[in-house]
């Protein structure tokens, strides 16, 4: 499979000029935080040699929005999440800050999520809602709603620049296998798998879109097209819907497993949250 992929890539490169490849820009945020946007693929990723951040496939204009936090439109939502972190909600009369002194103590968390906790695969959204329910006695937030994704972005920001390093062995293994199988399943009437576009054809144009490798290390991502923060599961839902398939629900076990598998494909890239995309 790997050999075939290499041959395909070689043939492709020899026919086509390198115009479609990821560009050579490097990403340093606020003149300070150097992000890894290109590195050797993790060993379990048998069909790719090098992994690239989605940032490398975007136009200069879009890239620029992520280089300085003053220009990053996602930061408005990060600020809102700081307020939410300090706001009492629920019947227990608690805010996040009542137990967690500072959001900075979550540094590193997003780099190792999703994670199996007490035998169950947990992603950040379910972690947050569990705390809201069990500790604060507060209503759960909607998965892809502004409050939830702002909080996921704020917590993710604490790990920005740290390498993605999810665990895929031990208890995580069956979830990882499930996610991997989904990644290679050709869904819908168009019979497209994630791999068809993001592994076999990254770097090429599909109509007006420049296909990336589909890493999720910048999520929640501010998507210019939708002018808001987009959750990972919302993006998964959109992709599967666009194969003319019956999609899965946000927060479903299937999408959690896919999220773990996708994170494992990004091992070695750095957390970019909150990224900006087209």
């Amino acid at each position, binding site marked *: 499979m790997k050999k075939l992929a290499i041959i395909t890539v070689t043939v492709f490169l020899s026919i086509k000029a390198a115009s479609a490849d990821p560009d050579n820009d490097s990403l340093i945020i606020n003149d300070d935080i150097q992000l890894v946007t290109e590195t050797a693929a993790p060993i379990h990723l048998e069909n790719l040699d090098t992994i690239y951040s989605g940032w490398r496939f975007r136009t200069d204009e879009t890239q620029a929005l992520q280089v300085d936090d003053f220009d990053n439109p996602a930061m408005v939502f990060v600020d809102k999440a700081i307020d939410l972190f300090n706001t009492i909600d629920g019947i227990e009369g608690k805010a996040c800050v009542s137990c967690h002194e500072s959001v900075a103590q979550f540094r590193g968390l997003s780099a190792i999520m999703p994670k199996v906790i007490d035998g169950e695969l947990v992603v950040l959204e379910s972690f947050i809602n569990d705390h809201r329910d069990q500790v604060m006695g507060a209503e759960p937030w909607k998965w892809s709603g502004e409050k939830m994704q702002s909080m996921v972005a704020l917590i993710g920001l604490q790990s920005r620049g740290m390498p993605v390093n999810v665990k895929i062995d031990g208890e995580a293994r069956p979830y990882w296998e499930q996610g991997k199988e989904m990644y290679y399943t050709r869904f*819908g*009437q168009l019979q*497209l798998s994630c791999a068809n576009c993001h592994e076999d*054809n990254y770097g*090429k*144009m*599909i*109509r007006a879109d420049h296909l990336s490798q589909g890493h999720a290390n910048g999520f929640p991502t501010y998507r210019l097209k939708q002018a808001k923060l987009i959750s990972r599961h919302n993006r998964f839902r959109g992709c*599967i819907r666009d194969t003319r398939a*019956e999609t899965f629900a946000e927060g479903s076990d299937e999408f959690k497993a896919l999220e773990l598998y996708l994170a494992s494909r990004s091992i070695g890239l750095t957390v970019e949250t909150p990224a900006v995309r087209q």
Partner: protein
Amino acid sequence: MQTPKINLITFFFVSAIIGVATATFADIHPGDIIYNDGAVKQSLSGKAGDIESGAEIMNKGAGNCIACHQVTALSHLPFHGEIGPSLDGTADRWSEAELRGIVANAKIWFPETIMPAFYKTTGFIRLGDAYTGKAHEGNVEPLLTAQQIEDVVAFLMTLKEE
């Protein structure tokens, strides 16, 4: 009383058969296509393809062929994709029957291809109701009609370089 009733049924039955036989050629159902090494000899609609309509399907709707392929003859249209090969000179390389087979279901010839099958109604995983994300219910329509396949093939047959 029994006899006329049977006659009546027979009458409808026979008329129905005659009706089918004399009606204009019905489309070949996706399930009934005979692929010969991936090629399909017979027109799916029984009619000739319309080149102009084919050119339009190349650019929009469920066709949208240039999302993945480059076609110099359509260079007035923006954003040709790079996923599939250029279709310039495709009629020099493939016969009409081969092009029909590839457009209808390229996976017969190229099992691993990313190219969707445009005239196929079974064998899908979690088939949805178009782009709604909801499950599909009822009869499945192929991505393109028999006539649309013929139109696209007719257009492709104009792409000659020699």
